[in-house]
């Protein structure tokens, strides 16, 4: 019972991070800070959701699979973030100066 509560709290925290990342994507001024918002916040958010789901699953096999998914997504999103930023730099897109 307590575990279920904890799990829901974890998933809730994860969702907050996802929302923060999405707000960042919509509100931030340039591609570099948007990438920052998306990849960082969503990876943490996904981590909390994975922890919550693992607690709810009650099975070691599913827990391991969930964490493997998380690690794969962290690697993939870090790589694609880097590649997008690199190609943006190549296209000479300037970071927007802060006011």
């Amino acid at each position, binding site marked *: 019972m307590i575990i279920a509560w904890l799990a829901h709290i974890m998933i809730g925290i994860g969702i907050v991070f996802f929302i923060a990342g999405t707000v960042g994507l919509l509100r931030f001024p340039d591609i570099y800070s948007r990438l920052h918002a998306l990849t960082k916040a969503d990876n943490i958010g996904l981590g909390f959701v994975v922890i919550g789901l693992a607690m709810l699953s009650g099975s070691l096999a599913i827990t391991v699979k969930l964490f493997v998914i998380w690690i*794969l997504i962290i*690697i*993939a999103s870090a*790589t694609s973030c*880097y*590649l997008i930023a*690199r*190609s943006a730099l190549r*296209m000479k897109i300037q970071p927007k100066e802060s006011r």
Partner: protein
Amino acid sequence: MTTATAFDYLLAVVLIFLTWMMLRSRDLFTSIVLFILLGMLISLAWVELQAPDVALVEAVIGSALTGVLFLGSLGYIESGSGRQRASDRSSFLSRQPRELIFTFLVSMFGGILCWTIFQLDQTFTGLSAHVAGEMSHSGVKNSVTAVILNFRGYDTLLEIGVLLLVVFAIFALHATQPISLNRALPKKSRVLAVFLYLLTPVMVLMAFYLLWAGGHAPGGAFQAGAMLAGVIILMLVGGTTVDLSARNALMRIIYIAGFAGFLLVGILVVQNQRNFLQYPVESAKHLILAIEGLATISIAATLVTLFAGCAGFLIPDHPEDCEIGGTST
């Protein structure tokens, strides 16, 4: 799926809204991005309809691969030679009659579809019961695989034949002679290289798992082939040189393996009592696995060639009269 949840209604509304956004967008690039997004949500809808097999194919082929092909075509249209050809062709019909003809055709087609829905037999409960009854003869435990590779094997054979025709079309479109070798990106990325070093084995393993899983769970040749194609496409983008040329004897075998293998199995099982593609029950499992294994390789090769042709990775023999647009350099 017994009752529709609030989430399903939301999904349905978002799907219609996204479709409308996609169609009314004036910018082709925005349309394509919305198309990819739409494909992802459609695959979510398939998950909600408890059809994970279709969801996988929709996500990988319907959304990702088609999206890449669209992006490649857009790059071609916006490149000089593509625009030139487009303006040559637009003299065929002026804008207004062309739009009228399209409107007429689309509304006729839509009308036929609506009419068909009202003609459907209301009491028909589907073929699930028949499939469930025949599962013990199919050689596999997953009903989708049983239907695709056994009960309607003829359709699947023709589908794999269509994929073979696609390869011919790519070679016909992109060069007069066999084409080969990718154009490596100007500067190779070391991060991508490490990423590939880490993940290629995992993705190849996953592809084989999907192939094997097809026997008892969602998966099979199309999903495994798409996964394998994804790995090879990443390697191409990362600067690995892959000889896709039809001059390469091995590639020729790979392109036709799926169709030829399927056809051969279909013919070999013919005996006095059995028809074309009617596998003997005791060896059905192994025959299906063999067909799927060969088909996986052919599908992967076809998808990679399709991507390479569209994204400008294929070098024509005469670049001056066959310029291809695509990836920005």
